[in-house]
């Protein structure tokens, strides 16, 4: 067998690894080859035919997703591929036309609009005018695939990504193909509900609007939303996600590829967990309890002074939510030192599911341990309490802390003992570092479209309070805080990303 290790794509020579197909090499090198049924995490079906390319010397175009870069054994020359030749383009345009023959063209009501590959490629390859004037095939619409997913067979291009996902990733086989020819549709097991908790991933991998989320259904058009790269704080796995929101509401969370953490996936529980962010009892502005026991809205500056005054009088411990960032936990430690107490973190324990979800629920529990925070196992006194969500800091811990200064997202989570309350952002609204269960440091970024306006970052509030306590703490800013953490011996072997770093940066201990 000839030993060929390179492939020519559009005249440029690229090396490849054994077993790689043309589309993989093309994508690795930044070439845009359209695809629907190809997904790097699933087996190759080659049925959508949109990724066809020209192989020089071959009259027939071939699908690049299944075309191995290694030439057949009897050929000793590297393959020469053209992705933008007349043949390749006309083959793809022809496929595009076929895909749209029976497509309902209901983009105005389709949630996928804006992130739909049919839209993208028809903009690239399609023609303005439809060649077909015949009636379109009618297929089932608005079919429930369990409680979370809606299937529209008319929009479906039968790429079988969802079927393959349930077969290969979750191995639960709920989905299958039914019918034949142009009446082929995806059908679901008669149990009517997914056994797997990873079903909503099929919505993400569906290249068109055939599978949409019941939760996100018709909530917002994509182009109104703000997106940010973040980390799921549902458990300590720290799945990489993209948060989406608009006008202060969080609307969805989608997994972001990270080969070392969550690959392309995330669990439904984590995905739908965001709803606590939109609670009607969100705290938007700082509040101070007046002498007659009534809550009054206050400016940030007044609240900081009031908090410092209250803490000077009380002193004591600090209890933080296990879902706080590394920066917040570090400052909590400083604050506790200034108050003459100790900082502890609270986190729940759930059940691992054997795939992504781990038992540890505190998203930054590993970070807390590195910083040297002890885990709060039972209720104990703490002057400062930071509550992001009920799950990690349940009522018993909150009430037992007898705290005077409270940082909380939800007014319902503020214990009666509180004197000053600061609004706390949810995980989608705060910048910061998280250390996941494997010791990997990850960056979460604030999504400006989510949460109350003008939310002061908690680390700034904590620094201001520390400053007011006359404990000799200087303003560091986020870079300074990260540098201070980095200087600790426990972080000697871990390199923390700079505060401005993009979310892609991450280091493993």
């Amino acid at each position, binding site marked *: 067998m000839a030993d060929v290790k390179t492939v020519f794509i559009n005249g440029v020579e690229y090396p490849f690894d054994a077993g790689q197909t043309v589309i993989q090499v093309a994508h690795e090198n930044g070439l845009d080859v359209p695809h629907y049924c190809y997904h790097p995490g699933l087996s190759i079906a080659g*049925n959508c*035919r949109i990724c066809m390319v020209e192989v020089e010397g071959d009259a027939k175009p071939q699908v690049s997703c299944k075309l191995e870069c290694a030439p057949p054994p009897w050929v000793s020359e590297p393959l020469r591929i053209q992705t933008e030749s007349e043949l390749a383009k006309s083959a793809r345009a022809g496929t595009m036309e076929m895909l749209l023959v029976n497509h309902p063209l209901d983009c105005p009501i389709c949630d996928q609009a804006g992130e739909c590959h049919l839209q993208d490629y028809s903009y690239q390859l399609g023609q303005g005018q439809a060649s077909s004037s*015949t009636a379109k095939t009618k297929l089932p619409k608005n079919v429930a695939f369990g409680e979370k997913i809606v299937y529209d067979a008319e929009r479906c291009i039968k790429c079988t990504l969802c079927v393959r996902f349930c077969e290969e990733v979750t191995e639960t086989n709920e989905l299958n193909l039914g019918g*034949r020819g142009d009446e082929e549709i995806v059908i679901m097991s008669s149990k009517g509900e997914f056994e797997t908790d990873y079903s909503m991933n099929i919505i993400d991998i569906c290249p068109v609007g055939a599978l949409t989320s019941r939760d996100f259904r018709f909530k917002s058009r994509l182009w109104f939303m703000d997106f940010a790269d973040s980390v799921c704080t549902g458990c300590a796995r720290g799945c990489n996600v993209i948060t989406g929101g608009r006008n202060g509401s969080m609307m969805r969370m989608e997994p972001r590829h990270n080969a070392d953490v969550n690959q392309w996936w995330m669990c439904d529980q984590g995905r739908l967990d965001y709803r606590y962010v939109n609670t009607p009892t969100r705290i938007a502005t700082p509040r101070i309890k007046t002498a007659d026991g009534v809550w009054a809205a206050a400016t940030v500056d007044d609240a900081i002074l009031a908090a410092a005054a209250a803490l000077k009088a009380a002193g004591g411990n600090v209890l933080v939510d296990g879902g706080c960032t590394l920066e917040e936990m570090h400052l909590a430690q400083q604050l506790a030192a200034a108050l003459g107490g100790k900082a502890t973190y609270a986190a729940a324990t759930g059940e691992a599911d054997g795939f992504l979800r781990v038992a540890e629920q505190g998203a930054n529990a590993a970070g807390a341990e590195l910083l040297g925070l002890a885990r709060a196992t039972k209720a104990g006194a703490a002057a400062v309490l930071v509550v992001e969500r009920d799950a990690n800091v349940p009522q018993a811990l909150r009430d037992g802390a007898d705290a005077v200064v409270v940082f909380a997202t939800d007014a319902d989570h503020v214990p009666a003992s509180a004197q000053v309350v600061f609004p706390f952002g949810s995980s989608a609204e705060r910048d910061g570092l998280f250390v996941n269960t494997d010791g990997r440091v990850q960056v979460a970024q604030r999504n400006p479209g989510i949460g109350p306006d003008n939310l002061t970052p908690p680390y700034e509030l904590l620094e201001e309070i520390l400053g007011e306590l006359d404990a000799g703490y200087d303003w560091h800013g986020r870079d300074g805080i990260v540098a201070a953490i980095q200087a600790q011996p426990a972080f000697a072997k871990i390199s923390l990303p700079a505060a401005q770093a993009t979310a892609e940066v991450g280091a493993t201990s």
Partner: protein
Amino acid sequence: MTAKKKAAAKKASTKKASAKKAAAPAKVVRAADGSYPETRILSANFGVKDSWTLPVAKKNGAYKSLEKAIKTMTPAEVIDEVKTSRVRGRGGAGFPTGVKWGFVPTDTDKAKYLVLNADESEPGTFKDRFLMELDPHLVLEGCLLCAYATGLDVIYIYVRGEYPLSIARLEGAIEEAREAGLLGKDILGKKGFNVEAHVHPGAGAYICGEETGMLESLEGKRGHPRIKPPFPAVEGAFGCPTVINNVETLAHVPSIIEHGGAWFGDLGIAPDPDNPRAMGSAGTKLMGLSGDIKTPGCWEFEFGITVRELIEQYGGGALDGRTIKAVIPGGLSMPVLTADELDVPMGFDALVKVGSGLGTATAIVMDDACDMVEACENIAHFFADESCGQCTPCREGCHWMEKIFTRIKAGDGTPADLDLLEHLFVNIEGRTICALADAAVWPLRSILRKFRHEFLAKMPGHADPHAADAKASDAAAPVGAK
């Protein structure tokens, strides 16, 4: 006895047995009067009473070749003999069988399978049914020879569900063979030659005749063809090396072993020494005729008989008062021949040369009473109905073509529709996983090009001004062949 069986037996019994399988028939030449005689090698036992039972088959020489191979030949010698015979696949593609067997790896720990393609769903094709119903032991012997040559373990005979009698006869033959020690462990006393055979019934899907679709169906899935490579010889049924052959192909193997590959290669049409792609058409072939002719049926000839001879000498010619308009020479999926193009010999290369193909060598004849637009609609409906739905151009394109033909038939078509069809042909042919879409395009495109005037005649105000001339010369109408 079922009506079908009776009819088949009757048809077979009317034929004169011109050659006994035992004696090697001499090279056939066209008779002095120009007629083309049958050469009955495969069909030698057709018409013999109870030819499907083991005692009768044994009397007529069944399993002698198997015995010969096992006792006197190595597996490699069997493959060489088949290679020498130049026998090509009889299912339509015409791939050299010996070469295919040679691809099966010999150094593998995996089980190896033979899947016998008896899913004869190609419209107009019924030749394998005759073999399975009238000589199942010949088929089984061929399978066993293949098993011996390639060292495989299990034979699955994938018979289409619409052939209940074939299924029953094959199951009966397997049962008889098992009892006679021709299946199972240490066959005919050969240590380590263990083969099992099972009939696997299909359930009504044309696509399962495609070899990889058949493998999927055999594995209990929907018959969605696989992308090749990997080829079945390396990774086939259940992920193991698999040989897939047509019934008729393997039925040839016993006589090849008995008389030698060279004898078989001498029959039929020799390869063209100047053209490496013209591999010749060795041996005999079951050929069939159906449609608008007096006596449809199935006969065995050496390759070389022309389509016209077949129709006139055996098919009895056109029905009274009608003239033949078009012939699809091999199953539904081959380009059509017009009445003027019928003097071409039935053979793999000769038919390709005139822009058609041998396919399954069972021709469908259409006469002047046939409306070609409606015929196209019928053909397009078949492929639309049988498209598995896996890949886009076929799933959407076949239905789209059908809709256009329906529109033209209803009188709502315009010449732009014909251009649109040509555009679709380009976007469908060669753009799919398997050849079903190609098979849909070939007959439709050839009919559209050769009988364009009939389409234009259905378009009010758009009739071809030269329609009269075109009709007069009919087939002489310019053919924009491929």
